[in-house]
């Protein structure tokens, strides 16, 4: 009996695409979480400031949060170049997974199935 060690290519493609989506989605979740924290800080800061207790540290936090929220708004509006580039990369990688060799798919999986980088 002969046995050829090989990957189940259909399953490999399916897992690679799922892994790719998880990778890119985790970046989006990190962004969303970061901006949610900033938004909460800003809200707290405003409440405190409006309550008549000015605090330089909180004002600085609020300013940083404002910047982060603007950046986030750009991302979710699709105006961010970074978001567009990431989406383009995701599509290109998916296309490559759909037609690529086992070796190519494995290379993509090893690169993009690990922990997502910081946003």
């Amino acid at each position, binding site marked *: *009996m*002969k*046995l*050829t*060690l*090989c*990957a*189940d*290519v259909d*399953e*490999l493609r399916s*897992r*690679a695409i799922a892994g790719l989506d998880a990778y890119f989605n985790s970046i989006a979740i990190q962004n969303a979480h970061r901006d949610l924290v900033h938004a909460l800080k800003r809200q707290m800061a405003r409440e405190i400031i409006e309550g008549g207790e000015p605090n330089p540290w909180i004002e600085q936090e609020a300013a940083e949060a404002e910047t982060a929220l603007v950046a986030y708004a750009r991302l979710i509006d699709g105006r961010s170049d970074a978001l567009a580039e990431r989406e383009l990369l995701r599509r290109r990688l998916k296309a490559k997974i759909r037609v690529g*060799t*086992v*070796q190519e*798919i*494995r290379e993509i*999986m090893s690169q993009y199935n690990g922990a997502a980088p910081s946003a």
Partner: protein
Amino acid sequence: MLIVYDEIGRITQALLNVCTEETVDLYKQNGHPRVFIYRKELPNIRDYFVIETDGVPEIVQRPLLDLVLSRASIIADGADAAVLTGVPAGASGTIDDGTSRSQFVGDGEPIEVQADHPGTYRVFVECWPYMSNSVAIEARA
């Protein structure tokens, strides 16, 4: 210890503190004909199975599948091959390359193992009543 097993000798229940003939009868009346009282220790029921000899059940330790691979490393050229022995006919095999799995069924003969793609593969083999075993094969470019 009360032992309940199925038609292939797999122990499905091992109950302490209910070792009475009445319990055995109760099980049989409730559709579990393969039940008996075992008077010794049984550390892990997964390591044992039941053989019936003339209708008398006996607890036997499950042997480990004795898989032997001639080489742990091959060249992934579709030609270089290692030989895997010890896979019984009808055994269920799984090849895991770390990202996906594929299946095969053993025919009882030695298996020539080759690969088209480099990678680290693990071949799992299951065949009741043996304890499952596996071998790792490195396919190099």
